[in-house]
């Protein structure tokens, strides 16, 4: 029963026992960790669709694995999967393989996405407009375009039982999905949860950001004084969450703990954050209060840091306010300069990056930073650095004022 269901008076500790990641830097934890640590960038000319008429022409495309991971779907159903589902399946398979869950218990799957299967939606609309009486393939596109169908296909492919919930809170979707799954496990409403986000590049969204002049026409440089916009990317990040008790009972390897989640809404404007970053600050404080963590204890912040003038100045102000007297010691970087902005996947992929930081004790650098914005009165990580980090924050701030912060803690 979803409601009323179990509601434990003493919240459980929630740990991560599996993580999967697919980005423009590669498929899997190892390659992403190595290339992030080396300061590589995945941003390159777009090949997936025609960008000749756009202002911006680069993004962080993924080289999809040649084959799908082992799947319980029929060959026909596999053929119909869109790019977004393939990204999701690749990251999900890695997380599930790592966690070692068997099919005996249901898994609550909570996914974040902004586009779902928009590539198929674009194909549907193009055919509907250009060949109105031609229906071939349209039913399949209709079905597989829908985000919930991608979640169902993913669950069926992986052979996991349980519910599928899809959240679409713009660029905070992946973080919101992990936060909601965290709350389910924390209160005993789910034993296991698989949570994260995915998004595939598509022309509609690329053109949309380009129409807003939000895409960099040079190089995406988060927190640089001369930044001129973001670089889009694509990919997926998934985390397997369970209670500490469950993980210990299984003897599972624990990658880290989700210790806090805070979500707020910025009502300033549909696409622009409040200049002072009040809602961003509130999200960070809420997450840290839940985790019982002070700003002084935060060893690293993976900033939302898109590289747009408005986002970065607003977030910089919020970070300085958040850290207070500890601002000059707060270590911050945005990984979007190298990975691109993965929209619905961003918060999830960046949570995986935070886990890499906590397990590997190193910090990913802020790429392409020439002259930091003077508002950045915190320590921007400019070179790959070894560091002792026990607590990491991941910020995700989206269109519509959807703000979310996750607090991750090293498992020692």
């Amino acid at each position, binding site marked *: *029963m*979803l*409601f009323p269901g179990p*509601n434990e008076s003493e919240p459980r500790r929630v740990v991560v026992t599996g993580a999967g990641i697919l980005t423009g830097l590669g498929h899997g934890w190892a390659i992403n960790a190595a290339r992030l640590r080396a300061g590589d960038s995945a941003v390159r000319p777009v090949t997936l669709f025609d960008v000749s*008429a*756009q*202002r911006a022409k680069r993004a962080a495309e993924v080289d999809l694995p040649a084959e799908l991971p082992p799947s319980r779907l029929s060959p026909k159903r596999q053929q119909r999967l869109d790019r977004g589902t393939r990204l999701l399946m690749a990251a999900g398979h890695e997380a599930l393989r790592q966690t070692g869950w068997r099919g005996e218990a249901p898994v609550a799957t909570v996914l974040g996405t902004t586009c779902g299967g928009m590539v198929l939606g*674009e194909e*549907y*609309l*193009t055919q*509907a*407009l250009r060949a*109105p*009486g031609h229906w071939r393939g*349209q*039913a399949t596109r*209709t*079905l597989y375009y*829908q*985000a*919930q*169908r991608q*979640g*169902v296909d993913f669950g069926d492919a992986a052979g996991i*039982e349980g*519910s*599928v*919930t*899809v*959240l*679409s*809170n*713009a660029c905070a979707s992946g973080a*919101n999905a992990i936060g*909601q799954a965290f*709350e389910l496990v924390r*209160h005993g*409403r789910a034993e296991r949860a698989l949570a994260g986000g995915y998004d595939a590049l598509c*022309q*509609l969204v690329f*053109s*949309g*950001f*380009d*129409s*807003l*002049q939000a895409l960099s026409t040079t190089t995406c440089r988060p927190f640089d004084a001369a930044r001129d916009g973001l670089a889009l990317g694509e990919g997926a990040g998934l985390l397997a969450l369970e209670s500490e008790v469950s993980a210990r009972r299984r003897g599972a390897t624990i990658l880290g703990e989700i210790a806090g989640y805070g*979500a*707020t*809404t*910025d*009502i300033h404007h*549909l696409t622009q954050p409040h200049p002072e970053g009040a*809602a961003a600050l*509130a999200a960070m404080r809420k997450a840290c209060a839940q985790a019982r963590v002070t700003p002084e204890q935060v060893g690293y912040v993976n900033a939302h840091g898109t590289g747009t003038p408005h986002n970065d100045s607003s977030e910089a102000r919020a970070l300085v306010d958040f850290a207070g007297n500890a601002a000059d010691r707060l270590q911050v970087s945005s990984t979007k300069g190298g990975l691109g902005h993965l929209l619905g996947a961003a918060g999830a992929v960046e949570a995986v990056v935070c886990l890499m930081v906590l397990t590997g004790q190193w910090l990913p650098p802020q790429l392409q930073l020439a002259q930091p914005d003077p508002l950045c009165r915190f320590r921007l990580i400019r070179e790959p650095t070894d560091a002792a980090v026990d607590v990491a924050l991941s910020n995700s701030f989206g*269109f*519509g*004022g*959807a703000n979310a912060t996750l607090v991750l803690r090293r498992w020692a």
Partner: protein
Amino acid sequence: MSGIRVSGLGAVSPAGWGVAPLWTALKTGTPLPCAPLPRPGLERPLSIRAVPSPNPRPAFLGHPRVRRSASITHHLLGAALEAINDPSAGPRRDGERLGLIVCVMSGCVTYSRRFFEEVLENPATASPLLFPETVFNAPASHLAALLNSTAEALTVVGDESAFPTGLATAAHWLQDGMVDACLVVGAEEMDWLIADAMRLFDRGRIHAGGAGALYLRRAEAGSRGVELAAITDLHRFATRTGRRRAARRMRTELPAGSASELLLLGTQGLPVDAEEADVWLDWPGARMEPRSILGDALPASAAWHCVAACEALRRGAFTGATVSLVGTNQQAVGVSFTVSPGS
């Protein structure tokens, strides 16, 4: 008693703006008339059930955040504001943390279609005014702005099961003290693109637009009112066989029913409804099929079902109400409501 009170109801539907016209249409039981919707490129129009223009025009449509917004936002705001201003809800308290959960399937499809048409024409001149309104959570953002609410706002995307998912999330937030009140809204807008796609699966499906809203709060001890009694697990399916199994599992989690209880079914007499209809053959009480009267508005339909269930209980017509939702292509889920007698 679950302790989660339904404090307010709101609806915008082809029957009109408000819960009252929705209830009257369902009580009358006569399918609302269909209207033709031109389908570009084809001579024969599509058949839909549209939301009538509001009369008088609501003041919120003049709000700066709303002026350029899509019709899904208008529907959503109409239903949400009716629910939150429901006389039985009482005034909002100072500093009240209000959670917002919006449930959609197609979302802002009209602006998405128009924007992509412009991209196909010439991506360099596609309108920056349209694109932000294509984002799934744009309606939730507008709602938060109108209500001056900075608490968490979530947009759930899915089939009809999205609305009960939103209700369960809201109930959990209230139980956990994360918010003081929560609005859950299911909304869709009408567009030829969706009506066209629906016909690919069943020509009897009539596309509709609109929204339904429930305003939830923790029940005050000893007070009388409609309560959220239970929401079943979400039973996932992808195939026809899976759909049958999911419907059965949902049914086993819900009350057997009695002659004094109402059942609201998601069925509308189409072949695809057979699995859902079969599991309810033994229901002893009255039943309604709102979609056969109002049309098919996906998660907004699910919201209308729940609004109608609560309205039936408020009117004292039944002692309990159960909503059955075997979704389009994701999950089956049931919701039951009851009346807390008060002390």
